[in-house]
Every structure is written in structure tokens, then in C-alpha cells.
């Protein structure tokens, strides 16, 4: 029904509705849509090198969305086009969710040079990473060159989001349980910039000392390499947001000056391949009733008969290769 070539042309021409529908296609779990999705991906396979993919992560309530609004408007002032992909975790038991990001980005959402798309995190084949990866490519094909990906910093999402992006911005606030010990070491290692947000009013002193502590421990952590930069921001008053945007631009330039930008993206493409192999295998299993039954039966045997998991996996793989 949908003509992919036409859709792609419309995306290239900056048609907002076309980009939105293409993202829907990527988010779709319907098997009929997979072929079209692949076709679309083929069309925008070239990696845009003049883009910057920025992950914005941090605990709920630290002011990520409001900060993204400020950052986005700064980027646009410098002539960029900004896409914000917000991954919302608020899925309910029934699969539904509430996506309220635009209430926090009212000015950015009205701006002609911005595109904001909140997506629920649940229920995508291949997971959030797969969906986000492809959506980034679509946004770049549509001419957006600052891609901001907002995720909530819980569990594994920081490390997976760092595998999709060029830079990671971590948003924190002083007090409120977000102490230094609260930030996992594994997360700290992937961060390039920290914004200590809500640096306003009675919070200013606590923010400054929290930032100083963070700087020290980030230095220790990085050893000889460059430590993540720590900036004070207030999304409320706008203080520090311009400086944050400049810092991100500067980091982006210095990454592109040496090879690290390209090699990071190449690594990410290799990882994409690995992920895709796993994903396609899973796909194959769940779409083939015989394989699906076998898998379920083998899993059951691990529990009921104490079958060795390795042996069970081997018989499943053999069945796939034989099929």
C-alpha cells in the first residue's frame, strides 16, 4: 500500500508527516511491514558524517526534557536542524503508556527546525536499540543534523544508548538521592559531558560542590585520557545552557578532527550487525511454528529434566540450520 520510494522522496524533501509515518513503520511489529522497513533502510543506508548523535540520559525528574529544549534551541540558533527522539519508559501492565514530553518542550515543539518524536519503549522487535538506530538514520535522511536521544537512566539503557550515539550527556542534580555513589561506575565510563542541572535559587551552593566532587572522581576514573566535562546548568533560568551547547559542539569538532568519531561509528555498525544476527535468528524461530515449539519444549526440559542448557541450545541451532 505504501510506496516506499515516494515516501523516501517526501522524507528527503522535509515532509514532516512522511518522516513521522516512516518512523511508525520502523516501530511496527507487524510482519507485513518488515519488508518495507528493510527497503526504507536500504534507501537511507549512507551514514551522515556531518550529524551529531547525542544521548541525553539521567534519572527521572532531573530536568532532561527541559534541558533538551534549551539545548535544541541553541543548536537551531547556530543553523542546525534538531530531531529529538524521546524513549518513554512509562509502559503499564497492559502495554499502554503516557508520553508527555512535548509538554516540557513547548517552544522547541513549535520551532520549524525541530522534530520531536516520543516513542514508548515496550514492544519493539529487536528492542529499543534497534528501533532507535533506524530512526536516527531516517531523521538524518530528512536533513536533521543534531539528533538528541532522551532515555531514562535506569538499568542498562546508558550503556546501550552509548552504542548508538557519538556523545553521551548525563544530567544529574545535587541531593535528591543522586549522590556520586548513586551513579554506577559503568555509566560514568561512557559519559562525555555531565550537566549538573537545577543550579538555581537555593540549590546553587549544593550544585557547585556536587560538580566539584564529580570532576575529581571523573578524573580519577579516566586515568590518562580526557575526563568528562562537568557543567552547571539551570534549565529553569537558562543559565549555563548556552555554554553546554558550545561544549558539546566543541567536543564534536575535536572528535571529528581525529579518527575517533569515524572509528566509533564503525564499531557501532559492527555491533549492529551482531545485534541483527541475533535478532533475525529470534525472528526466524518465532515465525516458524515448528522451531518455536521446539524452543519452548527445550526450555521446559531445562527445568523439568535438568537438560544441559548448552546441549539444548545446540539442538535448537542444528534444527535451524537444517530447516
Amino acid at each position, binding site marked *: 500500500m505504501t510506496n516506499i520510494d515516494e515516501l523516501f522522496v517526501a522524507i528527503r524533501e522535509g515532509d514532516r508527516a512522511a518522516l*513521522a509515518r516512516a518512523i511508525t513503520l520502523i516501530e*511496527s511489529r507487524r510482519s507485513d511491514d518488515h519488508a518495507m522497513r528493510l527497503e526504507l533502510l536500504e534507501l537511507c543506508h549512507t551514514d551522515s558524517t556531518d550529524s551529531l548523535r547525542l544521548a541525553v540520559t539521567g534519572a527521572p525528574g532531573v530536568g532532561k526534557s527541559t534541558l533538551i529544549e534549551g539545548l535544541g534551541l541553541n543548536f537551531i540558533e547556530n543553523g542546525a536542524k534538531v530531531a529529538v527522539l524521546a524513549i518513554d519508559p512509562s509502559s503499564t501492565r497492559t*502495554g*499502554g503508556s503516557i508520553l508527555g514530553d512535548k*509538554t516540557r518542550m513547548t517552544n522547541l515543539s513549535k520551532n520549524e527546525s525541530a522534530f520531536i518524536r516520543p516513542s514508548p519503549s515496550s514492544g519493539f522487535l529487536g528492542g529499543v536499540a534497534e528501533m532507535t538506530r533506524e530512526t536516527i538514520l531516517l531523521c538524518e535522511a530528512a536533513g536533521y543534523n543534531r539528533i538528541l536521544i532522551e532515555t531514562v537512566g535506569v538499568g542498562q539503557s546508558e550503556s546501550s544508548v552509548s552504542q548508538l550515539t557519538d556523545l553521551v550527556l548525563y544530567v544529574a542534580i545535587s541531593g535528591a538521592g543522586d549522590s556520586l555513589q548513586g551513579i554506577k561506575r559503568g555509566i560514568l565510563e561512557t559519559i562525555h559531558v555531565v550537566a549538573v542541572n537545577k543550579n538555581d535559587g537555593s540549590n546553587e551552593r549544593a550544585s557547585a560542590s556536587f560538580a566539584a566532587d564529580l570532576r575529581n572522581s571523573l578524573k580519577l576514573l579516566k586515568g590518562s585520557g580526557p575526563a568528562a566535562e562537568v557543567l552547571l546548568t539551570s534549565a529553569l533560568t537558562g543559565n549555563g545552557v548556552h555554554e553546554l551547547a558550545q561544549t558539546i559542539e566543541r567536543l564534536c569538532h575535536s572528535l571529528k578532527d581525529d579518527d575517533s568519531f569515524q572509528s566509533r561509528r564503525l564499531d557501532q555498525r559492527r555491533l549492529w550487525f551482531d545485534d541483527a544476527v541475533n535478532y533475525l535468528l529470534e525472528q526466524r524461530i518465532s515465525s516458524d511454528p515448528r522451531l518455536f515449539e521446539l524452543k519452548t519444549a527445550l526450555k521446559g526440559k531445562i527445568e523439568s529434566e535438568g537438560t544441559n542448557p548448552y546441549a539444548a541450545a545446540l539442538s535448537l541451532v542444528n534444527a535451524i540450520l537444517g530447516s
Partner: protein
Amino acid sequence: MKKLTYSPPPGTAARTVPETSSWISPEGFQLPGRYGASDAEEGLPPAGQFPYTRGPYASMYTVRPWTIRQYAGFSTAEESNEFYRRNLVAGQKGLSVAFDLATHRGYDSDHERVVGDVGKAGVAIDTVEDMKILFRDIPLDQMSVSMTMNGAVLPVMAFFIVAAEESGVSTESLSGTIQNDVLKEFMVRNTFIYPPPPSMRIVSDVIRFASERMPLFNAISVSGYHMLEAGASADLELAYTLADGLEYVKQAITGGLKVDSFAPRVSFFFGIGMNVMTEVAKLRAARTLWAELMAQFNPKNPKSSKLRTHCQTSGWSLTAQDPYNNVARTTIEAISAICGHTQSLHTNALDEALALPTDESATIARNTQLILQQETDISKAVDLFGGSRYLEDLTRKLIQSARSHIREVDEVGGMAEAISRGIPKMRIEQAAAKRQARIDSAQEIIVGVNKYQASSQPQLPVREIDNASVRRLQVKRLEQVKADRDNSRVEESLKHLSAAASEPNGRLLEACIDAARARATLGEISETLVSVFGRHIAVAQSFTGVYASEFTERSTLDEVIQQSDIFFNQTGRRPRILVAKLGQDGHDRGARVIATAFADMGYDVDIGPLFQTPSETARQAIENDVHVVGISTLAGSHKTLIPELIQHLKDLGRGDILVIAGGVIPEQDIGYLKDAGVAEVFGPGTLIPEAAGKLLAILIEKSTLDTP
């Protein structure tokens, strides 16, 4: 928090109680006007004595009944003026002005963002000339005027003062009340303009001005009404209203005022719902708590600790189905307010779930109070139910529960801080979602809605407002005022206002009065202040799971969830709906309850920001690629804004996105909206699972047609 006690301030306990008249009933009983403390089981001090549980005054209605004060404002100053004058002739003692949403939000009628809002839900006031028409031939030195204004309180007070001045009435002789309660705007009502800190400064500035120049004027009416309407339970309404009041008192004292110079003029405003004894107890509890909260400021004047209040029957309790039942509901609520000893009362008209009242329905509403006042014995004694074990127990329980909510607020550093963290808003919204689930699963009965539904509905005549012609009239008058005025004087006065706003202690209202004299408009004054203070953008936390957990009819809910799963399997994604509000209508209870309930039933729900134009909402709908846009409308702008939204969607190539509407939509507008392309209209009282299911059926059918 400071330990609160009941001990009365020195010199207040020993006052003698004046005599009240006794009366003889038709049975020949000689009945006293007041039953003494010894009659009340609790041995409470009598009315008029600290802590005023039984009433703020000793004799209460036995000497002077409550003031019948009907809130009204219709589109234009001319129409409203005529309405006020008719009512004054008919026995009303005070008047109460409702402003339109554009005025509330600080926009002139010619602003592009208020196209659908001018003249809706109240009168449009752009300049002092409109205010002069509003009060034409009404003697302002003899008439108490209540004005419901919060966001644009400065220009409105300035226009009021200048209109009086130019008709020869001095500022000092003006009496009445200005709502001026901005904290609850951030919590529930959303007609704010500036961020919280400058908004609080404006509140204090008005209180300061009144304490200096307007001895007969209540400079603030701390309001719980809107919390009740937004879904707060009685204890939440009580606690947050008093905590708001406390915050204003503290701020005024910090600003250098002496407690007795303004506290006697702090008034309150509560909503009255259907639980008769709870509402009586709520007003008694409010007086008790306020007296004990005020003790920490050591007032010398006993009036500083007396809570005086206006009450309004609940608009939310009215139903669009079987609307004649609303007369009974309003009467019952009025009885509660009276037995709780309110100082003034507004009774709602039976058609207020559909539109602004007609002259006929407004007359019934007013007569309801006249009947209670003059045909019954309700005014004949003080604290009629005092001593009832049930009432005393309820009063005590409400006091205790409210105290613990106030303590929670106190622990985070006061109401301003609690609001900035979103605590009260969240509590109230959760209460609203629970309440809706109880109604939708028939644990709570509403006659004619979820039980005893009528087979046919009476066709009520509904007041219709021609919003476009009101706007034309206002724009013309604005042009006239601008043509006649001395622009250099306007500019100078606005520069002066801007300078006053930039100084931490600048006198704002004086500067606005000067600008009003020069014929600066409400929009110009507000924009000048926005350029210094900024414009506030509301951010609300959302939650899921509350609705589903309170809903007891599991099978109904599961049916909808099952349907949403069918849709998911068919289309590859969850049904996605954008729940949005258009224009300046900030009443978002309905929208937010719908959002959380739909998410609980398997929808992906986008919530639109408040105060959007149709084109902004259309853009969000296409960017998020939703299946449906659901517009919640309560302020009567649907006939202008919804067709515009549909046009924008078509222009963006997405005419296929469904548009549905819900809220206050009169029966006779449904055809108009459907002709304009609205897929479905859900009136008030629609059960949410029913709406969610019906919508899914439409979506499933549509996607089956679309799929080859």
C-alpha cells in the same frame, strides 16, 4: 512544624455572647436561636469564640443571613451589566464577575492565541472603558463586588479602581473581594501568566495595596473550590487551601506587613459537594484549623484568626443527563454550605454541565437560596447540627487528616515548594482518577448517569454565545480606545511599570493604575510584565495504574484491553491517541483522567501542552503519527477551534487522523461538530471504558478497510 494547640489567644475567650432572638415554630415550640455549649456533646466554645468551630460570629444567620452572591459574566460588558442590574432588583445583595479566558491569561481580545476564547465563560475586559461599561449605573460605593481574577489581577484591579475613580467613587470606599489566589492556579486551574515567584510577589503587592488603601476590600480569597472540582477529596481540599492561605500570610509578613493589618481581610472560598455532613464538617474543620494555624503569628485582633468564606455548589456534581435532577443536587449542596455557616453562597444553575446558564435557569438557582433563606427554618439557629455525634466525629477526622497533609507540605518547606515539586497536583489527580474509576465501575452512584438512566432526555434551551461577534465588538472598541488615547503617555506609564517590576520592592499596582488611567490595555500591561518576569509553562507529572487498580468491574476493563491487543496485532502498534486541550481553557482534570485511564487500557497516550492553537496541536498529531486526537473542551470554544484543527490536519495531508471530542458539549452542537468531521462526541458522564471501547471499534474497522 510548630506544635499547634487549641488554647485561645489571651483576651478572646472571656467575651460575652450576645443574645440571639428565639422564635416560635408552627408547632408552638419556643425555640432558642442558639443552643449553648452545654447542649453540644463536645462542649465546644459557642459560635463567635475561638477556635470558631461553630461559626465565625456569635449570632450567625439569626441576625443577618448569608449573602446570596451569584457568579456571572456574559461575553460583553453591556450584557453583563444588564444582567447584574436585573439581579440587584431581584434581591441579590452583591455581585460577582466572571471574566473570559483571554482576560484571565492576560491577552487582549485581538490576540491570535485567543480567537476561540473571547467572551467564553465570562466577560471580556480589555481596557478601563470595558470596566466602566460593566459597572454602569451600579453604585460601587454601596455594592460589594467580587471578582474572580488571579493571573491578570494587576490590570483588572487597576481598571476597577480607575473605573470607580472616574465615576466619582474613591478607592477607600470600594468593598468586595478579589480572588488573587495564584497558588491554586499552579495546582489545578491553570490560569496563571507568570512563573511562581513573581506571581507570589504580585499577590503580596495587591494585599499590601489593599491594606493601605482599601479597608473594606478582601484582597485575597484563598480557594479550595477548584481543587474540589479537580477531584480533591474533602481533606485534601481543606489541607491545601489552608496551606495556601498560610503561605500568603507568611509572605505578607516577610514583606513587612503586620499580621493584623491584613489578616482580617483574608477570605476563603470552598466548594460544596454531595456528601451533606462531610461538607458541613469541612467548613467547621476549616475554621478550627485556621484559628490554630494563625496563632503562631500572635494576632491581637481576633478577626485575624476568623475564617470567613464564600461557598459554591459543585459544578462537577452536575450532570448533562437528566439535567433537571441538578436542581435537587444544588439544593442539597446549598443546605450543607448553609449548615456549615458560609458567609456567602453561589448556587449553580441546572444547565451548567452544558453551558453558561440561561436567564431562566439562573433564576431557579437564585430562588433556591431565597427559598432556603425565607421559607425554611434553616436560618433560625446557630450551628444546627452541632453536637451530632456523626458531625463531631467527621469534623475531628477531617481536622486530623488535614493536619497530616499540612505537615507534609510544611516538611518540604511550604506550599510554594510543594507545588514546584508537583506534590499537591499529583495527589489531587490521583484522587480524581480513583473517583472516576469508582463511578465508571458503579461503586459510586450518580442517578441518571450510571444508574436509573432516563430513556429520553429533555431538550434544554442552552445559552449560545456568538464568539466571533463578541470578538469583533471587542476589537473595534480596542481600536477606538487606542485611537483616542495619548500614546506617548501610555508608553511612559508602561516604562514606569517595567521599572517597578525590575526593582524587588517596586509598587506594581500603583504603576498599573497609572497605566490604566492612560488607557493602556490589559494585554499591554501583561506583556510588559511578561518581558520582566517571563511566562510560566506548566509541567505536570503523569502516572499510570491508579485508574485500573480502583476499577472493580474487571471484565469491562479486560474487554477493552483485549480489543486494544487485537488492534495491536492487526496494525503492529498500540492505538495511539493525543489528548489535547485547545485555547486558553486550563481545566485539565478531564483530559488528565482520560489520559491515565486510556493508558491503563492499552493505549499509547500523548498529552498535549496546555493553551495550544489548533495548528500546534495538528503538528504534534502528525509528528507523533497518532491514530486519534481527543479534544477535551470545557469552555465553549469547541465550535470555533475543533473545525480549525480538522482543517489543519487536512492541510498537512493527514485528514485520516480521527478527531474526537469530549467535555462540556451541548446536545445541539453535536450535529455541527460531526458535520465538521468529528468522528465521535463523548459528553459528560460518559463511562471511560465505554468510550475507549467504542473508539477502538472504530479504529479496528478503519484499519481493516485500510489493509489490503
